[in-house]
């Protein structure tokens, strides 16, 4: 493995910050959206240009400034970071297209502000992906929390204010109250915060302290939606749907999960955790969230809220997988970052498209909607297959590896958790799809006439659904990155 010095990661992070003045100064909406696309494409190209280097087994490093002794603001691109960056950067382009359809379709106010903070949020996401140490990660994590506040509260009404408060209380409260002290203790114990293949805490703390720190970190990164710190996610669904789609199914929540994965692999190290037998703690916390979230999702009528709870459950799959501390489990967890992203964003896009076309938010009002919006509901069907984990979608692969991981780690309880959660997923998704396409004739609420949302609204979910299927047949890039990341943890 070679370490290559290059400024590319910094540029990839800064691209969308640098485009902000251009967005603000654009006089015409089309020009503004043009800049958004330009930044998104440049960002993706920059990320992709680093992909071959990473696939060769190298790492790219860039140090911005050494701020405190032993800790610098530093970027390091490795396989895991690359995997996440690829997902986030590619979905930004699709979401930008969707944003145009959605925001214009509903004639939303303050669209410039919307695009500006969207761009900032993407910078922060890529920053988290490429962080070389805990301090840098924390920096971008906080930046993301703040950049998404104006997006969540976009409507600026009373409901938005309440949700915004809830959002900040959960997210900032936990990051300042739990992550910051835990990080300081780590620094105090070891004098470093640099992620290493087997962590840097080995030999520096005993089992009790390690357990406390681990719990602080897992609950502290509340963006991962681990119960009982999940309440912000359903509340944040007041945001415009593209925000929910990219941020609350992909960027924000995955940043939380990604941070926890980094903590498990880069700070503690899998060997230390299995020596202290703490993997079970992680898995148990995750399992509770998986089951409870799926049960709550069953009883939701608001489609976006149901998706929110589904997301909470799915995020914990990733944590469960990594918490198993077995190579297959970790591979499955990392793969699920990508697979769930494509599946869930499809579902959110569909929910938004339905809202734009019909103004309906509740599942009970969507009986027979498949007749009117076949493309949208078709995409919805594929997306839900991916979330449940059925072939031929990418979600099947990640779940397959997760299940193999539980067998490898010999944890039958968690195997049972995974399987029963899949059943629950099917139980809350399939009725929606079934009633949309095959309503009893007397109950159908829509005429038998195709009337889809604008093209910019329908195109993106169809594309992401297609990608979800394609990932089943060709999971190569993500799969290779995940297995490389696992090999790196194993020491080569």
């Amino acid at each position, binding site marked *: 493995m070679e370490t290559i010095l290059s400024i590319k990661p910094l540029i990839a992070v800064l691209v969308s910050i640098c485009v902000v003045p251009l967005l603000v100064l654009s006089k015409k909406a089309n020009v503004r959206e043009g800049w958004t696309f330009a930044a998104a494409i440049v960002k993706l190209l920059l990320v992709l240009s680093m992909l071959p280097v990473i696939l060769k087994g190298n790492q790219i490093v860039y140090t*911005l*400034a*050494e*701020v*405190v*002794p032993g800790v*610098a*603001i530093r970027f390091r691109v490795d396989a895991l970071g690359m995997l996440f960056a690829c997902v986030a950067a590619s979905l930004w382009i699709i979401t930008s297209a969707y944003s145009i359809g959605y925001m214009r379709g*509903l*004639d*939303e*106010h*303050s*669209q410039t502000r919307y695009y500006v903070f969207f761009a900032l949020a993407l910078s922060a996401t890529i920053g988290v992906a490429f962080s070389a140490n805990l*301090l840098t990660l*924390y*920096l971008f994590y*906080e*930046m993301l929390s*703040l950049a998404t506040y*104006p997006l969540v*509260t976009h*409507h*600026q*009404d*009373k409901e*938005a*204010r309440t949700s*915004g*408060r809830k959002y*900040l209380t959960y997210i*900032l*409260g936990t990051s*300042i*109250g739990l992550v*910051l*002290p835990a990080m*300081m*203790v780590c*620094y*105090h114990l070891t004098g470093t915060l640099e992620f290493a293949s087997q962590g840097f805490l080995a030999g520096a703390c005993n089992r009790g302290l390690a357990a406390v720190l681990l719990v602080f970190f897992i609950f502290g990164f509340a963006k991962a939606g681990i119960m009982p710190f999940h309440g912000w996610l359903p509340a944040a669904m007041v945001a415009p749907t593209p925000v929910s789609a990219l941020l609350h199914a992909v960027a924000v929540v995955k940043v939380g999960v990604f941070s926890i994965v980094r903590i498990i692999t880069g700070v503690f190290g899998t060997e230390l955790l299995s020596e202290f037998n703490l993997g079970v703690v992680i898995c148990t916390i995750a399992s509770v969230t998986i089951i409870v979230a799926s049960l709550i999702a069953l009883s939701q009528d608001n489609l976006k809220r149901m998706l929110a709870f589904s997301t909470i459950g799915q995020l914990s799959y990733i944590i469960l997988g990594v918490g198993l501390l077995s190579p297959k489990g970790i591979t499955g967890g990392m793969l699920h970052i990508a697979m769930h992203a494509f599946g869930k964003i499809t579902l959110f896009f569909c929910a938004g498209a339905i809202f734009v076309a019909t103004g309906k938010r509740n599942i009970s009002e969507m009986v027979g909607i498949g007749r009117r919006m076949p493309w949208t509901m078709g995409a919805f069907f594929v997306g839900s297959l991916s979330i449940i984990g059925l072939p031929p979608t990418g979600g099947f692969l990640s779940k397959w590896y997760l299940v193999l991981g539980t067998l490898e780690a010999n944890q039958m309880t968690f195997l049972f958790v995974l399987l029963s959660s899949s059943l629950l997923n099917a139980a809350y998704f399939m009725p929606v799809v079934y009633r949309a396409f095959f309503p009893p004739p007397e109950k159908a609420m829509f005429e038998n006439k195709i009337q889809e949302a604008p093209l910019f609204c329908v195109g993106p979910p169809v594309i992401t659904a297609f990608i979800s299927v394609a990932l089943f047949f060709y999971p190569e890039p993500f799969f290779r990155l995940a297995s490389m990341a696992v090999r790196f943890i194993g020491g080569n």
Partner: protein
Amino acid sequence: MMEHYPAFIVIVPFLFAFVVSGVAWIKKELCFPLTLVGLGLSAWFSVCLLRQVATTGVLKYRMGGWETPWGIGYHVDYLNGLVVTVVTVLAFINLIATRKNVTEETPEKEGAFYSLYLLFIVGLTGILLTGDLFNLYVLLEVASLTSYALIGMGSGRAPMSALNYLFVGTVGGCFYLLGVGYLYIMTGSLNMADVATLLPKLYNSNAIVMAFIFCMVGASIKMAFFPLHMWLPNAYGFAPTAAGSLIAPLMTKVMVYVLIRLILTVFSVDFAFVVMKMGDPMVWMSSLAIVAGAVFALSQKNLKRMFCYIIVSEIGYMMGGAWLGNNAGMTGAILHILNDAIMTLCLFLCAGSIYYRTHGLELDRLKGLFLKMPVTMACFVASALSIIGVPPTCGFFSKWYLISGGLQAGQYGFVAALLFSSLVNVVLFFRVIEISYYGDFETHHGHGSSPAVVMESPASMLVPLLIVSIGLVVVGLYTGSIVNHLIAPILMQHGF
């Protein structure tokens, strides 16, 4: 020429102060440019001095050529070289930014205002540069008297709060003077370095113990260390905008410097921590100050008064850091002098800019301000993030050192207080941000483009404000070099 920089920093604004007050009788328009030149020169000399100190190390200057300890000596090292630069540069920026406020709030009195402004800087720079205990007292009174006058120029309850401040401040000054008197009786010297060499033999003397306690109490009153902070919120809250944003960021920080200087140079670390065992109780007091300041700030309905209580809380940060008795804590305290000066200035400049347009800083007047004053509010958010302690703003890094020092010293109460105040700051600032982000719910409609009525402050206010807010991040990113090149050497010299 170069060797006279320490004197120039103090004397140039002093001379300009007289010129300004004289010119005010002839031509009022000249007051501002003259002040600008005087302060600009002082700031320029400070920067040169800092660069000189960075190459040669310590710099000694004898006033009028008299040998120390008989004459007054100026003693410049990294510590006061850094702080004096911060003070003069920030005062210069503030001068430009608040010009319009001055003409609006104290019309016809610009001459007096600007000459007091300069004299205040004379006092502060003198306190920072001098190596003489009594000279420090004299300049402390210069700074204090001018600040009473500056605050008293405000309207409404300002004269009353200035009077209150005068009473308390004089008591504080007297305590310090008494302490210096005891030291003089016991050692026969007033020169800091000289006293420091004479003291170790006298550590067991009760008079020295009293001298130490008197000096500490005096400094604590002047810096508004809880529970001696009662004068601060009214004095700074009712002061004219320009005076508030000058005095609030600088005066308290200079007093923290005085305290650190007394511990490091005069009484020595050994005396303060080993003989007096003041470390633990003072850290607990500081933790209390942090929590109390934060809680009081929560109950304020006026933006500026909220900032005042935040200052009380921040003083607790610096005092606690200084009294932790380890390298990281002291580094944090010194770094926070710099960072907090910039943050507080940024906050007060935002308040000034808002006040210029709204003529009131009650929280409910701030509705919809993000639309009306986007640039000011962006700067406000930047300084809020720094006070909360979000990286990469500078506030995060001093907090980092303070927490790290607290962990090393095993002072978990102090660490908890710091985290608590960060969380309270989130509430404090996001309450303001929320009010100014949401307009009236009744008239609000979420669709279509609402006509934005931008009524931003003039560029003369915005440009300095922007510079200060960018400074927040730049200083944050350069924390490493500041600590390595400026703070570490001085601490090493004093046995940390």
